[in-house]
């Protein structure tokens, strides 16, 4: 690909990008949120038609008018936003668009068998080909998406942040698969915000910044991290977790006692003091999302109580939690957090409407001022708050969700995978933000599948496995191996 330019109304997402990929290599694509990575690979996949530039495949120049054209050429893509149809089964999704069929009649058993094989190859024989995709967890869906890319028998597989929803074990398995592929001469374009992954799996690196290629063909293993970060952000970032303060020994603010939900988790108790950051570590599917959602009242607990500042929350009532000062940044921002067709400003102020209103009338000046302030402080890109949120890149959308609860000024903040898909610069900003909030006396609960992140950010860590609290300890007393060990052993200590 050379000199690719893609303009959206109002923004030039790609402004002359070059990318060349060799057979059998893992080519990593790096860049901040909004740098244009997803746009670039969508251009490669035939989703967008570039305004300028050429794509050369096997030595011949091609134009890709439709995703099917790219696939026919041998390019398969795993998109950042999961591209699955929730109402269809796993097998149907895997073979969507290239169904196994004879005379138009689908050969369902053949498709199921092939799917089963693919999933087994990915290390997930437990996912049933006949399960409905909507019922799978985000990680499960990512696996399906991967199976789908593999089912195409492509010569180039593009992966847009495949590891965002995966835990470390899953990522390892993903890497095994990638190695097998490259051994067969398949090229892989790999996008991730986790630089350590790049080191492990990558061969060469291309860095995008503001829709331009700033570096290409860097050796992945050798280039120093600081150099990559400097190329991406234009400045150097000390990629470290903020200093922990001394947690005041106040009364716990959030007290969760013995909550259970049948089939999801059992007898979970914990408490968080003001100024404390509690981390929930565990593997994908451990039920951590369910726990925080239940605490928030988005799911109704079968048993147990949640109290905030001594006040008991009504079970199953988000409203009661919100008015008690609890906020939740949910795991799936698109389906659970954002009104995609609405503006950034409105999405930010969604939980705080009454503050800007007098007798129901909204003071729009005050509203947009407050939203703009937050957008600026979170370095939202682009900064305009009147922009429709669907046009923002994934990481920037996440910032908007955080901004919503920052604006509200919560006493208790529940963050489910707060840095999923967030670039390294923004990530350290979010860490600093969380710490600052804690210092201001907010009780924070962080769920993350990145154990390093949980350990680095929290004061105290709960290790959750299979719907149970397995272990509780101050973060300083645990390391990554211990956590994995606890999870592997399984039963509660």
């Amino acid at each position, binding site marked *: 690909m050379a000199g690719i330019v893609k303009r*959206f*109304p*109002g923004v030039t997402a790609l402004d002359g990008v070059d990318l060349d990929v060799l057979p059998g290599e893992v080519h990593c694509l790096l860049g901040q949120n909004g740098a244009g990575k997803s746009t670039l690979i969508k251009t490669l996949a035939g*989703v*967008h038609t570039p305004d300028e530039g050429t794509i050369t495949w096997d030595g011949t120049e091609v134009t890709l008018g439709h995703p099917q054209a790219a696939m026919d050429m041998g390019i398969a893509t795993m998109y950042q936003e999961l591209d699955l149809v929730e109402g269809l089964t796993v097998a149907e999704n895997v073979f969507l668009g290239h169904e196994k069929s004879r005379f138009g009649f689908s050969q369902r058993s053949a498709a199921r068998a092939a799917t089963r094989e693919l999933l087994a190859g990915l290390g997930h024989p437990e996912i049933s080909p006949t399960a409905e995709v909507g019922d799978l967890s985000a990680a499960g869906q990512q696996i399906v998406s991967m199976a789908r890319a593999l089912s195409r028998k492509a010569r180039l597989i593009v992966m847009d942040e495949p590891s965002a929803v995966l835990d470390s074990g899953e990522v390892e398995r993903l890497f095994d698969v990638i190695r097998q592929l490259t051994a067969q001469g398949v090229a892989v374009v790999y996008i991730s915000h986790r630089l350590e992954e790049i080191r492990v799996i990558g061969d060469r690196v291309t860095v995008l910044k503001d829709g331009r290629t700033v570096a290409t063909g860097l050796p992945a293993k050798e280039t120093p991290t600081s150099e990559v970060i400097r190329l991406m952000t234009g400045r150097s970032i000390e990629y470290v977790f903020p200093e922990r303060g001394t947690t005041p020994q106040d009364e716990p603010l959030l007290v969760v006692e013995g909550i259970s939900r049948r089939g999801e988790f059992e007898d979970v108790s914990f408490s968080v003091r003001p100024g404390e950051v509690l981390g929930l570590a565990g593997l994908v599917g451990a039920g951590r999302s369910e726990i925080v959602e239940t605490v*928030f009242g*988005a799911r109704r607990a079968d048993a147990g109580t949640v109290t905030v500042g001594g006040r008991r929350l009504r079970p199953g009532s*988000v*409203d009661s*939690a*919100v*008015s008690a000062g609890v906020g*939740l940044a*949910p795991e799936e921002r698109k*389906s*659970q*957090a*954002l*009104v*995609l*067709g*609405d*503006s950034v400003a*409105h999405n930010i*102020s*969604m*939980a705080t*409407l*009454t503050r800007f*209103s007098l007798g*129901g*009338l*909204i003071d*729009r000046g005050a509203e947009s001022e407050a939203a703009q302030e937050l957008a600026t402080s979170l370095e939202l890109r682009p900064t*305009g708050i*009147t*922009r*429709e949120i*669907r*046009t923002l890149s994934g990481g920037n959308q996440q910032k908007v969700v955080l901004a*919503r609860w920052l604006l509200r000024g919560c006493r208790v903040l529940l963050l489910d995978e707060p840095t999923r898909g967030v670039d390294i610069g923004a990530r350290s900003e979010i860490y600093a933000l969380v710490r600052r909030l804690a210092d201001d006396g907010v009780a924070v609960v962080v769920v993350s599948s990145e154990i390093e992140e949980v350990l680095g950010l929290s004061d105290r860590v709960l290790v959750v496995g299979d719907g149970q609290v397995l272990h509780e300890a101050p973060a300083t007393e645990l390391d990554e191996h211990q956590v994995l060990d606890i999870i592997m052993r399984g039963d509660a200590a």
Partner: protein
Amino acid sequence: MSVETPRTSEEPAGTQEMAAPAATAGSGPSALSRFLGGSATRNLGLVIALVILCVVGLATAGERFGSFDNALTILRLAAVVGVVSVGMTFVICGGGIDLSVGAIVALSSVWATTLATQTMAEDIHWIVMVLTALLVGGACGLVNGLLVAYGKVAPFIATLAMLASARGLAELIAQRRTQIVRDRSFIDFFGGSVIGIPVLVIIFAIVAALGWVLLNRTTFGRRTLAIGGNPEAARLAGIKVERQTAYLYVLLGLACGLAAVMLMARTTTGTSTHGQLLELDTIAAAVIGGTLLSGGRGTIVGTVLGVLIFTTLTNVFTLNNVDTSTQNVAKGVIIVAAVLLQQRLAARRRST
């Protein structure tokens, strides 16, 4: 200069979405385009369509179309549909739909003109009839709202059931008779004019203005758009989705009650046949006005323009003595042409 941030071209086909993008009111748009509901581009298309219609009207029917009287006739006819359409815009923006509006109008009009109500109205004041109609409309809306919001019955089904029941009930109450409004002062009030403007038109204007404020400037409106745009996100942001949904149907029910009063004044009757196919007219007005059937987006100005376009169209046809069948054929073609034109226009403006 447009400051919209339009959507990309990958509009999924087959979704119930107008292809024109909504502009978000940024810092720069003129007062006019701001008034046009924050989505000037889309509404501009409607205004152009309306202007073309008027030009055609003037060209073919001249003075008869251009007279002040005729304008009032159009507005008076638009008033009843308009009031309900404004309410419908809220329900659709909130992710719902209401097929029962016509039936609710019928039931309200019948209930407000029963012998008992009219006798009471005679003793006290005609306001009794108005209150009865509003009460009946609101109650029907409440039932719809409860079924949809708390009973989790699909809006299409719940309001279809209400459509059947309310019209049936109206027939039972009225014994299928046309009930004549006897109170002259009621008819004189609603049939009258204030400084040359019919009261019905004034009511429509007030309802539209209130609707505009409610949708664009209040927390109620913001919540409506949020639950329509993404109910799950709204719920997790602490919005009481169920309650808000129920409110919307009650609001529409009240609009139906008001429309019933207006219709009673216009036709001097209450009957179970009032409001036939009103659901189609109002949904069509809202949708052509840019309201997304899937919820989360819509403008009152667009809806009002939609109502005016349909009403003016019929007026122009009648002035030209076009027979109904030809009218229908032409109507279909014109609707599609207008929508296509509007899209091209939007695309053009987008790329400037």
